[in-house]
Each structure stands twice: as structure tokens, then as C-alpha cells.
């Protein structure tokens, strides 16, 4: 049951790697496999929500010795969102026509890496799956193989390799300090450690996940990469791969090193604030749609960081909810920028409203949770910051809308009907989840309870 999504993704990825992904039927085979992975993840989510977390120790070792795979509330919701984003992006690319034979297989390898990463209970196993997904996304970034994609892939690879190095060092020093790699045992042990010895480790982890998420001081690689990669790949990178950063911050920050997280609250809030303002202002000042969306991604990451810095049940709950909603918005917007035609404009507008947090879109609940954080913290400055961020995001979104969908200088050809309908479908999904948010709110509430209660 727990292994099912992982095994399906892995075996089909290997099979697909041998086939030519440019053929239509191979693309649809990949979509079928990805749908199965998504369904298996959904099934596992329902199971976890009903019966609590599931756990398997590999190789029949006693728990604590062997490598654990653990599906708990936090991991499984992230796995569901990421696999959903991958599924949407894959359908989009197959409808638009795949250019390279490896692309469908790569998406399934990425699904393997991400699912494994979200469902592992072992810190080093987390690193291995992390590298599986990073390596796949390095290759995906080259998709298209023109000069700009290759340049983006080079920047992406080098910077993220450095991030991985920091993460690996942090894992090694955690092992040195606690003598274990099991996340549950790490959580128990980390609370009793001497403060000085673990602070550096916490900083390393923060840098590693900050690079993945594109937070303010580590953001410099992000705009050129999101600008120059293929729309479907940009959607995958911002909607699925960036989840590693927010999940890692939640898992290692809010669960394992919760004491260090509280200690660094000031720094987190400050960096988050800078991220929000810097991202929004840069997004207003740049000219192309993709680049503006890339800076917007930096700003959105800032919200997660601020909520995490405030902490407590309300703060962590808001961080989780926002980290789950944001990928959906980003996927819709990046996919919509790659298309032309009348349905696309409406879909983009819905995505823009969702980013700004206007009901009845899904983004409203993310913003509402953030405002709750500000009110719970009794801070007028925070509420003002969130309001300002939302207002600025409305400005840059409509600048993009104006440039892309209002002005049609040359007779641009509309994109194929199917992909436009797909993008509209994602927009409708965001609206529908905004009108009926209970499942998502429940799932994120359960994940919060798990994180807070797990201490």
C-alpha cells in the first residue's frame, strides 16, 4: 500500500525510458501511468487520514536500524500535490507535442524521486531521493535543447549542486551529533542536544532548502531558470520541485529542529519580509511574463517563511496551507503563459486572483490563514505586510495580463484547443477547491496537528 505509488512510478519510468516519448501512444501511456501514481497517492492519503501514519522498515530490520518508509499526514499531502502538478504538466506537454524522447520517462522518474522523498522516514534516504529528483529536474531543465534552455540548465545544476552539498553536510553532522538517521529518533534526540553544536547544522539545512525554494538571499539562480525553460518544465520546477524546499523547511525546521526554529524566528521573519517585498517589486519592474512569475515565486516563498518564523499552531498551519496552495497557482500561471487564445486569458486571470488571494479562488484561504497569523501574533506590521504583498501581486499580475492578453500586435496563432481546455480545467479546479476547501483545509489541519503533536 505504502510502496504502491513509488513502485508504479519507478517501474513505468524504467519501461518508458526505453520507448520513444515523441510517439503519441507512449505519451498517453505515460499519462496513464502518472494517473495511476496519482490515484495510488490519493488512496494512501485517504488511508492515512483515516487510520494514522503508515510505516514500513525496509529489509525486515527492526525499526531504528533499517531504513524506514513512513507515510504521515504532512508527507502525503505534499506527495499528492506534487504528483498532481506533474500529471497536469505531463498532459499539457503531450497535448502540445513532446519534443524529446526522454521527457515522459523523466516526469515519472521525478514522480519517483518526489514521492520517495515525501514518504521517507530516514534522513539519508531523504537525501538519496532528493538527489534522484534533482538529477531528473536538471535533465528536464535542458528540455527543448536550445541555447537558452541549456544555459538555464547549467545555472540550475551548479547552484543546486551546491545546495545539495550543504544538505549532505548537515545530514552528516546530524548523524555525528545524534548517532541516528531515523527522523523520529532525530526529533527525540535533537531536543536534548547542546545548543551550540546544532546551530550550525540548522543553518546548513536552512541554506540548503532556501536554495531549493528560492528565498531572498539564495534566489539569484531562479529568475533566469524559470524564464528560459519550457513552460511545462517551468511549471514542474515551480510547482513540484520547489515543494522540496517548503517540505524540507517544515520537516527539518518545524519538526526535527523545532527549538532552533524558534530561536531563529527573527531572522526568518526578516528574510521572509525581504523576499515578499523584493519579489513583488522586481516582478513589477521586469518585462517578460515568465520572469515576473519567477520573481513572484520568490515573493510567495517569503510568505511561507514568515508564517514559519511566527510558528505555533497558527503559523505552521498557515505555512503548510500556503505551501500546498502556491504550487497549484504557479502551475496554472506558468502553463497559461505558454499559450495564446481566449480561454487562456480567463484561466490566467483566475490564477492571478488566486495569487492575490481574492475569493472564491483557492488562494483566498492561503491569504486568510496568513492574516490569521498576523492577528494571532498581534502585529499590525505583519497584517500590513501581507496586505501590501497581495496588493503588489495584483499589480504585477495585471501588468502581465495586459501585456500578454490585451495587446495583440501581430496576428498570433491560438494554441490547440485541447491544451487551452486543460489550462481552463486547472483554473476551474482552483475555483472548485476555493468553493469547497474543506478537504484541503482538513488535510493541512491534520498535518499541522501531526507536526505540533509529534514533539
Amino acid at each position, binding site marked *: 500500500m505504502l510502496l504502491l505509488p513509488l513502485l508504479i512510478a519507478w517501474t513505468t519510468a524504467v519501461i518508458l525510458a526505453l520507448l520513444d516519448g515523441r510517439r503519441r501512444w507512449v505519451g498517453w501511456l505515460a499519462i496513464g501511468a502518472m494517473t495511476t501514481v496519482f490515484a495510488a497517492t490519493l488512496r494512501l492519503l485517504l488511508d492515512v487520514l483515516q487510520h494514522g501514519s503508515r510505516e514500513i522498515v525496509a529489509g525486515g530490520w527492526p525499526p531504528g536500524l533499517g531504513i524506514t518508509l513512513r507515510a504521515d499526514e504532512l508527507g502525503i499531502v505534499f506527495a499528492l500535490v506534487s504528483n498532481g502538478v506533474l500529471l497536469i504538466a505531463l498532459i499539457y506537454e503531450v497535448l502540445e507535442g513532446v519534443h524529446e524522447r526522454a521527457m515522459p520517462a523523466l516526469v515519472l522518474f521525478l514522480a519517483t524521486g518526489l514521492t520517495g522523498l515525501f514518504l521517507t522516514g530516514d534522513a*539519508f534516504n531523504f537525501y*538519496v531521493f532528493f*538527489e534522484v529528483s534533482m*538529477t531528473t529536474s*536538471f*535533465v528536464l531543465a*535542458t528540455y527543448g*535543447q*536550445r*541555447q*537558452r534552455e*541549456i*544555459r538555464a*540548465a*547549467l*545555472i540550475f*545544476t*551548479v547552484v543546486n*549542486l*551546491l545546495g*545539495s*552539498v550543504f544538505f*549532505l*553536510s548537515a545530514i*552528516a*553532522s546530524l*548523524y*555525528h551529533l545524534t548517532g541516528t*538517521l531515523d527522523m523520529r529518533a532525530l526529533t527525540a534526540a535533537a531536543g536534548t542536544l547542546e545548543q551550540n553544536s546544532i546551530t550550525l547544522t540548522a543553518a546548513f539545512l536552512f541554506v540548503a532548502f532556501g536554495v531549493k525554494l528560492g528565498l531572498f538571499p539564495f534566489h539569484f539562480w531562479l529568475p*533566469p531558470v524559470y524564464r528560459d525553460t519550457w513552460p511545462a518544465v517551468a511549471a514542474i520546477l515551480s510547482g513540484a520541485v520547489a515543494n522540496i524546499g517548503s517540505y524540507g523547511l517544515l520537516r527539518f525546521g518545524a519538526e526535527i529542529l523545532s527549538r532552533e526554529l524558534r530561536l531563529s524566528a527573527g531572522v526568518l521573519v526578516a528574510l521572509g519580509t525581504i523576499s515578499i517585498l523584493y519579489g513583488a517589486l522586481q516582478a513589477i519592474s521586469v*518585462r*517578460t511574463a515568465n*520572469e515576473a512569475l519567477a520573481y513572484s515565486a520568490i515573493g510567495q516563498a517569503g510568505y511561507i517563511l514568515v508564517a514559519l518564523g511566527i510558528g505555533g499552531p497558527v503559523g505552521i498551519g498557515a505555512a503548510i496551507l500556503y505551501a500546498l496552495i502556491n504550487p497549484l497557482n504557479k502551475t496554472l500561471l506558468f502553463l497559461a503563459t505558454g499559450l495564446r487564445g481566449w480561454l487562456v486569458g480567463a484561466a490566467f486571470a483566475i490564477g492571478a486572483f488566486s495569487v492575490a488571494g481574492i475569493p472564491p479562488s483557492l488562494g483566498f484561504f492561503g491569504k486568510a490563514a496568513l492574516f490569521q497569523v498576523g492577528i494571532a501574533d498581534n502585529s499590525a506590521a505583519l497584517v500590513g505586510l501581507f496586505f501590501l504583498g497581495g496588493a503588489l501581486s495584483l499589480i504585477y499580475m495585471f501588468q502581465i495580463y495586459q501585456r500578454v492578453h490585451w495587446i495583440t500586435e501581430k496576428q498570433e496563432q491560438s494554441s490547440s484547443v485541447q491544451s487551452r481546455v486543460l489550462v481552463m480545467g486547472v483554473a476551474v479546479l482552483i475555483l472548485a477547491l476555493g468553493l469547497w476547501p474543506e478537504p484541503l483545509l482538513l488535510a493541512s489541519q491534520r498535518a499541522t496537528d501531526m507536526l505540533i503533536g509529534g514533539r
Partner: protein
Amino acid sequence: MNLLLALSVAVLFGAGTFLMLKHDLIRMAAGVLMISNAVTLFIMSVGLSRGQAPIYPLEEGRPISDPVVQSLTLTAIVISFGLTSLLLTIIYRVYTLYGTLRGPDDATHDDHEETTSELLAQRTRDESPRERSQA
């Protein structure tokens, strides 16, 4: 031994960072390789313990050296090998597309054509003076 390891890690990491900041892509790849080797060494050093080899018929009473770090190191070496070869492949693609091994500048131009022609101009500049005089 600890001091020696710490020094080697520091030197490897420092030299790797220095090389990574170079404009030449091969040097940059070498820098990445050195940094990942520094981390490999670091993993070894965190579990440094004297004792008998952890192979099953164990002698009673003698300490056992930690086998976990060995396996972690091995995994890290394999992963960094794979990533380095991928990085070199991407660099090769850069070379075939741009015709130069000096890093593709992230020009702020949105116009793709402009960037290409600039790089072509840069490429002719980088070629030997003899060829230029012929041109």
C-alpha cells in the same frame, strides 16, 4: 588525525569554491567535483572511530568501528559521480551550442537573437589573433 581531516576538508572546499567562481566551465566543473569530495571526506570524518571491522563473527569486548558512515560515503560518492558526469554533459552541450567554454553570460536581454549574435561576436574575439587577422 582529526586536525588532518579538518584541514583537508577545508583546503578542498576552499580550492573548490575558488575554482567554481572561475569563468571557465571546465574549471568550474572541477571546483564542483572538489567540493563534493570535500563533503565525502567530511562524512567519513564524522564517524571516525577505531575498532574491529564490523563483519559478522565479532570478537567480544572490543569496540566496533561505525559501518554506517562507510555506506553513506559510498552512496555519496556514487551520487556525486553521476552528477558530475551529468554536469560535464551539460557543459559539452553548452560548448556545442555556444562554441565556447567561457560561461554563457546571463545577459538581461529578453531578446534571444541579440544574445546569440553577441555570443558569436565574443566567440570570434576569443579565437586566436592569427585567424582574426586573416578575417
